[in-house]
């Protein structure tokens, strides 16, 4: 997201709340989210993919909504209007290729309408078929979840992504030999997929409220949080979508402050640290242990400032629109142990994994394997959760190892904390020795995470191991 996007979104948010006494808010959120879908999508080497990806995102969203329709219900008139409006907007984006200097919302010239119309027809027919034959049937939700996970695997596993690129290049009559995983840059799909999976799982558990298509699309594609979260809950989002928080000067001040702080974190601090943050090339070029540490610190602070800054902007924009997006960061580098760290880093993702993986798995294991000691179950659940969190970033050995590193750390702290409780040890207090202990704990926790960041910054286990050896002067 660039500054021009943020300026436009801020303007749209204020307009949404002020125009017509706020009665245009929901339509502006909906239409703004659809427009942002196309506007934010970066260009790709494969022709027109910067149009087809947003269309696919909208199509996925609409189709998942049809899957989660309660049994025996039909889409209301308002839903058909929203669907027709969405399809019309997509067609309009395609037609903008003829608009001369006004073209284009997409990064490159969109495909011709006679190519787009059949795709929209397919989405419409699929939706109709789902409504007619599948809605209300819970197994359909499970299949949808598995398809979304499959999609994420294709997008995160390099050989599969490359194969997808080759397939798409072939379809577009472009060189297949140049197929690369980097061709497939699908804006926000990880976050969209997680929101959709959350909805499908809640639908399976009868926890999902009845949502209109406009509410559903606005939730999944909410433009402030489209590219990188936070991942909100549908029921919570829709409550404020239907009944927005009032726009007071206090809200404007809070939201504005949040946006300004986010801009500073992301564009001033994070982008400056990006000049020196550790990566493969810099690690290979650096011949000094000291400067390697400096680059690692640079990387560790950069990822926090970049992500936290972006979250601040999203939360600020959400607040302007009367939606309280969940917090994503709570000063993680100041936490005295890894458990508190992971309760304060990318909190919405951690909450998601806890709700849809960790707790169901641990409950199922406890029920199924009663003889298994609880620590073993905790270890397994924590390790696999964190490894999945790692793999969510990309299916590579490095992300897997990074996840395992976090899992081991979490389990170690879990056991240590349990032992402390068993000894009825008094918590770290406010005495000077208590404060000192807290400082030491914070430094230890931070450096545990910092050292794990090597796996994150580099692309191969060999390169990562080489960096560790050089960081500690062994090489």
């Amino acid at each position, binding site marked *: 997201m660039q500054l021009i996007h943020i300026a436009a979104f801020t303007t749209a948010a204020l307009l949404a709340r002020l125009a017509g006494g706020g009665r245009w808010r929901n339509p502006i959120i909906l239409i703004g989210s659809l427009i942002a879908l196309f506007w934010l999508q970066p260009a790709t080497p494969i022709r027109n993919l910067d149009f087809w990806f947003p269309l696919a995102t909208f199509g996925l969203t609409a189709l998942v909504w049809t899957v989660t329709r309660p049994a025996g219900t039909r889409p209301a008139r308002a839903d058909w209007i929203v669907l027709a409006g969405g399809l019309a907007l997509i067609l309009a984006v395609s037609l903008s290729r003829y608009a001369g200097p006004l073209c284009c919302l997409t990064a490159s010239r969109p495909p011709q309408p006679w190519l787009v119309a059949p795709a929209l027809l397919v989405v419409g027919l699929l939706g109709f078929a789902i409504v007619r034959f599948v809605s209300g049937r819970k197994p359909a939700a499970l299949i949808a979840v598995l398809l979304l996970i499959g999609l994420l695997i294709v997008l995160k596993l390099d050989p599969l992504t490359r194969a997808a690129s080759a397939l798409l290049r072939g379809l577009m009559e472009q060189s297949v030999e140049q197929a690369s995983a980097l061709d497939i840059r699908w804006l926000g799909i990880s976050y969209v997929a997680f929101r959709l999976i959350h909805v499908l799982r809640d639908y399976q558990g009868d926890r999902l409220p009845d949502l209109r298509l406009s509410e559903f699309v606005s939730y999944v594609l909410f433009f402030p949080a489209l590219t990188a979260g936070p991942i909100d809950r549908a029921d919570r989002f829709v409550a404020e979508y239907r009944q927005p928080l009032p726009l007071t000067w206090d809200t404007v*001040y809070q939201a504005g402050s949040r946006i300004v702080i986010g801009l500073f974190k992301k564009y001033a601090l994070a982008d400056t640290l990006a000049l020196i943050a550790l990566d493969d090339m810099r690690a290979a070029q650096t011949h000094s242990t000291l400067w390697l540490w400096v680059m690692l610190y640079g990387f560790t602070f950069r990822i926090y400032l970049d992500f936290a800054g972006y979250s601040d902007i999203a939360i600020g924009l959400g607040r302007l629109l009367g939606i309280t997006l969940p917090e994503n960061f709570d000063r993680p580098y100041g936490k005295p142990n890894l458990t508190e760290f992971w309760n304060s880093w990318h909190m919405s993702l951690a909450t998601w994994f806890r709700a849809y993986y960790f707790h169901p798995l641990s409950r199922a294991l406890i029920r199924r394997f009663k003889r298994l000691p609880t620590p073993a179950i905790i270890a397994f659940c924590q390790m696999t959760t964190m490894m999945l969190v790692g793999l969510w970033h990309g299916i590579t050995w490095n992300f897997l190892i990074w996840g395992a590193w976090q899992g081991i750390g979490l389990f170690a702290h879990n056991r240590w904390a349990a032992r402390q409780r068993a000894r009825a040890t008094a918590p770290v207090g406010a005495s000077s020795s208590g404060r000192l202990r807290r400082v030491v704990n914070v430094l230890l926790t931070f450096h545990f995470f910092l050292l794990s960041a090597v796996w994150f910054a580099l692309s191969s286990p060999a390169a990562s191991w080489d960096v560790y050896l050089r960081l500690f002067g062994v090489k």
Partner: protein
Amino acid sequence: MASDSQPIRRGSVLRVIAKAVVLFVVVNLAFALADPLPLIGRVSVYNWLVPGRERLPFGENPASYNLSLFQLEAMFASHEIARPKAPDEYRVLVLGDSAVWGILLQPPETLAGQMDAAGYVAADERVVRVYNLGHPTSSLTKDLLILSDALRYDPDLIVWLVTLESLPPEKQLASPILQHNPEAVRDLIAAHALDLDPADPAFVNPTFWEQTLVGQRRALADVIRLNVYGVMWAGTGVDQFYPESYDRPANDLEADVDFYGLPDPLTAGSLAFDVLAAGIELAGDVPVVLVNEPIFIGDGQNSDLRYNFYFPRWAYDDYRQIMADLAAERGWRYLDVWDAIPPSEFTNSAIHLTPEGTNQLMREIADWLGWAESK
């Protein structure tokens, strides 16, 4: 931020906005009036937190951890020349174009780098330390601007490599570093009565608004970026992007014998020899050695008309003769090594040398200067 019990009211928000606007306007106006950028440029992490760069900043490829900027104070502050001169140091500055700066050469492989590493000793037994002040644009006036700033670093000798490409009148103000330092260049034009137009439209004369903080944001960002890149310079020693391959100098040449539309034969007045003289005058008591740098001499098609891509034979021969005559007439110390380096030791242009070619050049110059290697 407000506590939950005391929400912010409209008046507070409007006051904050008003104060922010006033502060913004005041800071911008103050910036425009005070022009603090030169002072800011002197604040540098180089030479204390990180080592000084071995050549002036240049280049915009992010992989080079380098950038081109026009802020002379910042450029010099980042260079190793800004560190204090040692008591036993014989300080030598090497001026020139991209060949001196070292396109495709690592810093230690440049002329100044190899001279510095050779461990030469001056006649008075001081240790020769050589500093690369080359900058990759061909313009004697650019060299003069750099020289004018460099003299405050107390050099003992200036080695100024020149070539015909730096002398045509239309090249003199073509360099962006000159265009963005109009006042300094105008001062030089006035002080030395140079045959250059102080009102040349090439000069970038910022308006008042362009001198505000907003207007100068790019220049300020460049200074910050230069300092941040100090970490990468210190850690990697990389300051240039090296392509995997490059094209060798053209050996088959065009039949065209034009040289910047200048009349045949060339005269001293048709080239910027006045700038050369101004540099020697500016240096004062500091001896200046002029070196006509080596060029690639082709033997392919039309090599009877042209030496290489840059120079038709007639123009280059005239230039060499004029240089030799002027040097003799005015007592300039002048070394002509135009054909000292074989064609095989040129890289991607008719003036850029390989490390070995640079080494050969270094020995030519050092021998001529009578430098001895330390025992």
